[in-house]
């Protein structure tokens, strides 16, 4: 009988928190592109005698993250030292919350492979400091073949929230979904930019296979996945590799493997499988952290609306389709823009169409964020209203929108510039157009005249052509009237 497999995945995500200063000192966290070792001080380079002072903002971000993940917030928490030697770790210990994390026992809901909501358990969220970065002297920047290495401590001490999931994830797709949801969450919370490419969100995966014959494959840790795509591909590869081995009756080596994005494979990590004893013990330089109820309530009261709640509300309030809602709530900024349009009088469904298609297309073209949207929500709302009030046609509105994009014209100016006032084409001008269209479509005219246009399909077709020719400046009822007159006369 053919073997069946179940994939079991648990993820550890290191999320860089976007506080202005590091977790234990006042150095700036804005290190990307900075001269090496320019954002450092005695504390974050582990100078003898220097002491850590906890950045309160990091605690707040940790609590926010924990709440958003439905975790229990531990009111009494403390930091511990994780001891190990490495050149990027200046004190030779990392300050982290090992024994009592700030938040634990939560969940994050994703859409499972069956299309149903699927809760992924969150084991814990704890706060800790990032390490520095090693730069190796070999030509390709790798450690192999390099005769010297350099350390840049700019990243050392940047705050991290490590979120550990339960092994509840059943496929590479779900893993991707989970990370994507996590990224959306931290962006909604404003606690991280969640950028995997920049390394502000780093994902390590633990993956194993359960076999239908009762065997359990050993767990493999996969690292070095720098994008959602890479994560999915790495886990797909690893799934196949493990299933293949198990099918052939071999055992899975419990190890750490690195994802090679170029070759599309995982390879055993060069670093020896660490049997590190981290000798954790409470950090004596930091007193235990006691969060009082008032503090926790204050944070709860100032939590932003989170993706799930927003999506639910969008459906209730605006009656949008699921697809619309997903796009509009992708980022809190997009949702806010959309809601501003609606609030300024835009019809919810048509506003959604405009934002999803036109606004987003322009942003894509210009490489801009929604915060820099070229057309203010109030202006877009007015434009939508003009269409609804039949002051201008949809086609004309699109032209007006394009005129507005450079950001130089007011709505009135743009309309004028397009010359697209509805009703501007009427009377003789309209008749001219009808005459031309009728001449170009003699066969259609014949069908209508012969009474074969049962459902006014051909008539509507002609009307469309006339509207188009008038560049939307004719009033539809006038077009219909004039067209009927023309057909009866000729």
């Amino acid at each position: 009988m053919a073997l069946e497999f179940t994939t079991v995945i648990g993820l550890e995500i290191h999320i860089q928190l976007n506080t202005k200063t590091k977790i234990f000192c006042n150095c700036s966290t804005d290190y990307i592109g900075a001269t090496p070792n320019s954002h450092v001080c005695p504390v974050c380079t582990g100078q003898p005698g220097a002491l850590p002072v906890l950045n309160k903002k990091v605690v707040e971000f940790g609590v926010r993250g924990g709440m958003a993940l439905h975790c229990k917030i531990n009111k009494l928490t403390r930091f511990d030292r994780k001891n190990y030697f490495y050149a990027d770790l200046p004190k030779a210990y990392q300050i982290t919350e090992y024994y009592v994390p700030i938040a634990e026992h939560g969940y994050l809901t994703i859409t499972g492979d069956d299309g149903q909501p699927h809760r992924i358990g969150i084991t814990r969220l704890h706060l800790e400091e990032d390490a520095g970065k090693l730069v190796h002297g070999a030509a390709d920047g790798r450690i192999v073949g390099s005769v010297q290495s350099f350390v840049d401590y700019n990243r050392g001490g940047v705050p991290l929230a490590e979120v550990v999931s339960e092994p509840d994830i059943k496929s590479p797709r779900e893993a991707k979904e989970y990370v994507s949801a996590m990224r959306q969450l931290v962006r909604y919370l404003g606690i991280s930019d969640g950028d995997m490419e920049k390394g502000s969100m780093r994902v390590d995966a633990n993956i194993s296979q359960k076999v239908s014959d009762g065997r359990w494959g050993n767990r493999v840790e996969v690292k070095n996945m720098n994008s959602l795509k890479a994560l999915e591909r790495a886990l797909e590869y690893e799934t196949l590799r493990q299933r293949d081995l198990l099918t052939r009756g071999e055992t899975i080596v419990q190890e750490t493997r690195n994802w090679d994005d170029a070759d599309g494979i995982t390879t055993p990590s060069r670093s020896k499988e660490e049997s590190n004893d981290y000798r954790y013990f409470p950090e004596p330089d930091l007193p235990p952290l006691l969060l009082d109820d008032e503090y926790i309530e204050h944070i709860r009261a100032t939590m932003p609306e989170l993706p799930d709640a927003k999506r639910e509300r969008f459906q209730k309030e605006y009656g949008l389709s699921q697809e619309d809602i997903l796009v509009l709530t992708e980022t809190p900024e997009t949702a806010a823009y959309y809601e501003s349009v609606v609030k300024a009088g835009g019809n919810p469904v048509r506003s959604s169409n405009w934002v999803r298609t036109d606004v987003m297309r322009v942003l894509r073209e210009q490489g801009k964020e929604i915060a820099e949207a070229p057309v203010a929500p109030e202006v877009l709302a007015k434009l939508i209203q003009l269409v609804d009030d039949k002051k201008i046609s949809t086609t004309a509105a699109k032209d007006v929108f394009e005129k507005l994009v450079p950001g130089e014209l007011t709505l009135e100016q743009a309309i004028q510039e397009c010359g697209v006032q509805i009703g501007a084409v009427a009377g003789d001008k309209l008749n001219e157009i009808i005459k031309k269209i009728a001449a170009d479509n003699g066969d259609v005219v014949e069908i209508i005249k012969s009474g074969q246009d049962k459902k006014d399909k051909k008539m509507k077709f002609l009307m469309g052509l006339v509207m188009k020719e008038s560049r939307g400046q004719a009033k539809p009822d006038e077009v219909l009237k004039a067209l009927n007159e023309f057909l009866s006369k000729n």
Partner: protein
Amino acid sequence: MELSSLTAVEIVQGIQSRVFTCKDVVKACLKTIYEKESSLHAMLFVADEGALKRADEIDAAAQAGQDLGPLMGVPVIVKDNICTKDMPTTCASRILENWTPPYDATVVKSLLNAGAVILGKANCDEFAMGGSTENSAFGPTMNPWDVSRVPGGSSGGSAAAVAAGYAPISLGSDTGGSIRQPASFCGIYGMKPTYGQVSRYGLVAFASSLDQIGPFARTAEDMKLALSVICGFDCHDSTSEKRPAPQFTFNDAPLAGKKIGILSRLVAGKLSADLQSCMDVQIEKCRQNGAEIVEVALPKALEYGLACYYILAPAEASSNLARYDGVRYGMAYKDAHSLLELYVKTRAAGFGPEVKRRILTGTYVLSSGFYDAYYLTAQKVRKVIKQEFASAFEQVDAILLPTSPTPAFKIGAMSSPLEMYMADVFTIPINLAGLPGISYNAGFNDEGLPLGMQLIGPRWSDAEILDMAAYLGKETEGRIAEGGIR
């Protein structure tokens, strides 16, 4: 008038009233240092040039009638495990030989802001690990009362320097008695303030939960001056307490109506004869001055304190000293071919035997499988000891006991590390409980060696115990040690 034997109070007065200049004082102190240093080896760095330059600045200010603060023009010596950005800070270790920190410790800033002149850095046991200053990688310090004896430790250099008249005030650090014991061996005051009273920022960590900076001085008035400058909250040290700095005042009869706890039964048989009789005299003196003497019981503190300490302190030390890896500062093995080789060779060559012993002990007690049995148990014991002291202080205002079971011992006399550890039995529990303790001189034995007594108070009673110690120590305070210096 010998300027180098003046007290800090006299120096400030003399400079401000322009009887002499700061430069005169600094020169006199430097002269004393040069005369005695070959016999004592109390210093690891003498900032002669810098100190003279600083003296000029102070004199200019004095000329202009400026008041630079309570320590204006006072020479101060700082233990070599306290960071100074103008001077090397070696912790008496090869691994930090020639290292100059990029910043000043908070206490150093406080001293400078108060107008002090930092004369140099004092010898100590390597990374403050020891009780005799024999563990300095750069050679031991000798006791100025008898150069064949140790000055105590680990702040032996700081104690010897003040006792010998190098400066009226010095700073040390006390993790298990490292200020009080050398103060007692050198016949001066030495205080470990309440944990959290003085900022540890810039004190090279040995055991973070136990370390505390404190002053040495020959007179109680000078202690008061030094403490008033270094005590207080520091936002750079999360374990420093956000509370108003203590007000140090001296009363005419600080012992009257006070309850003084003694441990006569517990210390019986543990003391040398001279200290036993010294203690008896001091107890009687307290009684005569209106104190009620109460026998207190601290059985666990005295029985388990040492064991508890020698688990917790090395545990923290093993982690605190892991940063000396040759990557960023200090000694580095130059020909390493791998990171591991860099670590191993640097640390093997850089640390002395006592430091290695404690790193190994600490690493062992923290390792998985042993953590619960050692570290966690020791933490529980520490709690019990704290509780025991708290109960004791419900009955008494202060506890009086010898600082050390013996006066200064001969260099090389301690044959084993364990024997050396045992000498800290009266000082260690105080660190475990985070209490303030002060050692004062209570006389001399037949050989002319100082005998030190210790007063311990509840947390934040720093001013009260200094007041009592000042009263009890008045008779013999202020002497400059001349014994045995050739």
